[in-house]
């Protein structure tokens, strides 16, 4: 196991975003975090990324608490645009190169070209679709052990989605894992090994995607509809 969450809880003043989540992730697998808006997926990812501090519970990456070492190895892409306004696409690459040892500049340049972005483009002037592509390029240009992509297809037009999914699959290696959240369950169904269904901050169903389909006699999309409808 590379990631272990035990009874993870995150409470805010007026709501509980994560309510006792138990979840483990293995090396070499792609996990889908599924659930409607406000179910706790993003908060869980942010806790793993070290951006949000849990109220209680334990969380370890390779047996150690989340911290500097895990941040070296976990690549997180948030659903919101997060690049500094003063940066150009080229600056984003330099910033990642400055701080992440696993950042591959050549791969970044290749992804930027593939995403039809220009190195001189200013991040603050990018459309939401292009900003989403830039986030994906910067995140996947790292040779991370764990990638966490929060709604990677948000803002991406239907034509470019396949390109993004192929790029994500390209980055999946035997020695790395992926945690992907998306509302577009049918797009994810084709590529995932495991599914984690989250409702009101708790895991309601979790397992190997193939086994879930076999045991319930339903596709992941159908299970999603059954759980959240």
């Amino acid at each position, binding site marked *: 196991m590379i990631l272990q969450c035990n009874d993870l809880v995150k409470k*805010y003043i007026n709501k509980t975003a994560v309510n006792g989540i138990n979840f483990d992730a293995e090396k070499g697998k792609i996990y889908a975090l599924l659930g409607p808006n406000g179910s706790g997926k993003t908060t869980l990812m942010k806790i793993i990324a070290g951006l*949000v501090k849990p109220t209680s519970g334990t969380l370890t990456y390779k047996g150690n608490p989340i911290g*500097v070492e895990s941040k070296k190895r976990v690549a997180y892409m948030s659903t919101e645009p997060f690049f*500094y306004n*003063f940066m150009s696409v080229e600056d984003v690459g330099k910033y990642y190169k*400055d*701080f*992440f040892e696993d950042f591959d500049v050549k791969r970044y340049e290749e992804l930027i070209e593939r995403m039809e972005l220009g190195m001189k483009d200013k991040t603050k002037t990018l459309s939401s679709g292009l900003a989403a592509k830039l986030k994906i390029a910067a995140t996947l240009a790292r040779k991370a052990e764990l990638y966490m992509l929060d709604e990677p297809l948000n803002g991406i037009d239907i034509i470019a989605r396949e390109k993004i999914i192929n790029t994500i699959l390209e980055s999946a290696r035997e020695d790395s894992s992926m945690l992907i959240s998306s509302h577009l369950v049918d797009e994810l169904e084709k590529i995932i090994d495991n599914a984690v269904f989250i409702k009101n901050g708790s895991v309601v169903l979790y397992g190997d995607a193939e086994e879930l389909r076999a045991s319930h006699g339903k596709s992941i999309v159908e299970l999603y509809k059954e759980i959240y409808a």
Partner: protein
Amino acid sequence: MQWVKKMLKLMKYEFRKQAFSKLIILILVGLIEILFFFGVVTDNEEMIAVAMGFLAIFTGGALFFLAFESILTYSNDLKQKSSYMLFLTPNTSYSIVGAKVLSAGLQIILAGIVFFVIFAINGGVLIVKYDAIAEVKKMILQLADQFFQLKIRFTDIASVVGQVIISWISTITVAFFSITLSTTFLANKKFKGMVSFIIFIVLNVLYNKITDLILGDVTKYSANVSTYFIGNSIILLAAIILTYMGTAWMLDKKVSV
């Protein structure tokens, strides 16, 4: 050495975040200087006086703004999504806060030096050009010497300058601490800024009380001002260390961005 490299990288981006305002300040100073030298060349004393007046007001405003901007940048780093850029990097919160404090302190020192040099150049030009100003300067120094028996020593000047710099840095670290403390329990609530400000005021009152308690009345030190400034600087340094450590600890353990 790796740690130093990381700090320098963090500082580089702190400077870049605030580079635009520095550019504006430089342009405005440039414009004031053009006005000043135009006045000198054309012998327009009124223009020189206006330029020097502007420069004096602008210097105070710019130094205040630089300190305030560092605080504002930190506050934004805790409430805007761009904070992910900073907090996702594999740096300890001690490095992150340390880089912010160092770059803020460095900016104030550099700005102080730049403005000092500008005033020195302008003053030099005026003294060379107008003998009367040189006479006035001599007279003021003689008067000060005779009437107030002021013996300005280098150690006194150095301790005052040191005190001003440490005082600015402590203002910044206390502000960082206040913002971080309010973030731990208010996250991004609307009135967080007001709560941070109240915490800041309370901490400053506390600091003044502690200083009075330890050093006593400032008038006791009229014979040796340096002793007071050194004592005060030690208390300020302790405040800087405590608020810096507290800020970094809260960021590490309590703050969600």
